[in-house]
């Protein structure tokens, strides 16, 4: 049963992966304009033919897709053609080696910060459900949830960066140039992205905990005389965090590439900005590989969630499948 479920999940993962990447190939093929003329305006005939072959313009879509897929799996993401128009340029994978850690770190900080805030907050709100604490917190979270992250980012940049001059407003500092400075450069983007996620997480956790608190085993634990905080952390929290776990994993998947706006506001030069730049300059191979990468990231985190459920908690798994 378990194996069957795992196999089913894997099969679905692979199917969607193939369909998504093929769909992206079709989309990139649909990009209007003459790719060779755009990337190499002053090229000789020989250069044009070479580039045309590199972009797979002489193949049909299916052939091209499989060639691209082979390259992609091997980690060759294509060339990012230079604006000099001579067909030269950097490897996308090398540019990604710079951009990806930035996006991954941002994602990691956002998830860690969001969980650190929303877990205690969700517990507190559920424990004090329907009281003033809960109402005030719910309303504040609701208001914060409605603020677009770029508006929040601008506001924070203005107050903390310009007025108080505590933190840098733009730019990214790599870890090897000092961890403190690195953290400083990431604080504002992290908070801007986290606020909405914190609101989401604490609301999810709150409602799950409230329903767990109604279970018999909680009454049992309370009647044995265990302390409230012990019950909350040891008995209630663990069975209540599956929705939170799912949401966190999906957010992690979506944040690679999905954080493009905040990356732009704070000039972090992550994956999202690399993708925007590729689209602006019509880097056909780069666009295809980067979009595929964001989709793969999302699907992998989805798969992790599904596998986690099918392995760890058969009760939830069958519940979710129904």
């Amino acid at each position, binding site marked *: 049963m378990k194996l069957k479920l795992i196999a089913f999940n894997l099969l679905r993962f692979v*199917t*969607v992966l193939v*369909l*998504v990447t093929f*769909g*992206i190939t079709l*989309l*990139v093929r*649909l*990009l*209007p*304009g*003459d790719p060779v003329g755009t990337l190499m305006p002053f090229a000789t005939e020989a250069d044009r033919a070479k580039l045309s072959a590199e972009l797979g313009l002489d193949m049909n879509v299916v052939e091209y897709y499989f060639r691209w897929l082979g390259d992609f799996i091997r980690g060759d993401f294509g060339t990012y053609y230079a604006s000099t128009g001579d067909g030269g340029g950097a490897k996308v994978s090398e540019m990604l080696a710079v951009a990806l850690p930035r996006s991954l770190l941002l994602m990691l900080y956002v998830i860690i910060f969001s969980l650190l805030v929303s877990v205690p907050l969700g517990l507190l709100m559920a424990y004090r*459900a*329907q009281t003033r604490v809960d*109402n005030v917190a719910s*309303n504040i979270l*609701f*208001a914060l*949830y*409605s*603020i*677009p992250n*770029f*508006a929040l980012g*601008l*506001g924070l*940049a*203005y107050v903390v*960066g*310009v007025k108080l001059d505590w933190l840098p*407003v733009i730019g990214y500092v790599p870890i090897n140039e000092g961890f403190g400075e690195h953290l400083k450069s990431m604080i504002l983007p992290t908070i801007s992205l986290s606020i909405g996620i914190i609101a989401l997480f604490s609301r999810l956790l709150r409602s799950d905990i409230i329903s767990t608190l109604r279970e018999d085993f909680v009454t049992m634990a309370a009647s044995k005389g265990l302390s409230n905080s012990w019950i909350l952390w040891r008995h209630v929290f663990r069975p209540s965090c599956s929705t939170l776990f799912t949401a966190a994993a999906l957010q992690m998947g*979506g944040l*690679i*590439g*999905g954080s*493009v*706006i905040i990356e*732009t*506001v704070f000039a972090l030069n992550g994956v*999202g900005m690399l*993708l*925007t730049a590729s*689209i*602006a300059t019509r880097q056909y191979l780069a*666009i295809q590989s980067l*979009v595929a990468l*964001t*989709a793969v990231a*999302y*699907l992998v985190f*989805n798969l992790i969630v599904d596998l986690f459920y099918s392995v760890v908690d058969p009760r939830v798994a069958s519940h979710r499948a129904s």
Partner: protein
Amino acid sequence: MHRNSRPKIGLILSLSWFSVCIFCAIFGDFLPLPKWDDYDYDNSAARMFSKGHILGTDYDGSDILSGLIHGSRTSLGISILSVGAALIVGSFLGILAAYRRGFIDSILSMFFNVFLSVPTIVLTLVLVAIFSSPSLDGSSTELPRELVLIISLTIVFIPIIGRLARGTALSWTGREFVLVAESIGMRRREVLIRHIVPNVMPALISLFVLGIGFVIIAEGGFAIIGVGTQPGASWGSMLAKNRGELTLAPHTALIPATVIALTVASLNYYGEYLRSRIDDRESRI
């Protein structure tokens, strides 16, 4: 129950704010204000409450209040049209999938899942790139930026709404009254129209309201990464145009940001209110 105990003042505030926005979007051109694209260069980057410009001007000398009023038409227009179009197509596909099940359902669900596995922003970016570039022969048949955004966002929203409509419709197809209707010999199509669609509608309406807010945010985001409307023509592009001025004229960027936040907040509030009403209704059925 808990939601209903919230003071109604929030509802009044959010609906009034949204009415003001709608009013501006429709009648904004008739208000006695300077044109948003009249550049008053003598008064560039004027502070708030300066003479002739209540909310000041940006570095081009364009009046911020008129910009906001003009922008309400662009921002709301894009949102309402794209979410509305996606709602019609998406809910049709979703309900169809839920009711026919079998092959059609598998195909449509797969299609929804494939679309949903690319982050919304990334997918829209690619679609905008496809629709916004000039045609092959170089003739200037470029679509207006607004239309490009509407088409792209519609495509992105169809699977989101479709999946939700499918889920909601599915939860109704197993209900007793549907079984009863089927067992007394009602035709499937009639069951669908009489019993399923009316019950799915409320959820879709609340999704519509929440979706408008989402698109207003998305439009702002696209303006920031440089694929939005003409600079200054919508709330998002006003913010994007002026976001470099935080040090010298912060109000030029922060005012549009606040307007976007207020509008989205009131839409979310109203959407949530509708949703809690629906939950109450469904718990009674």
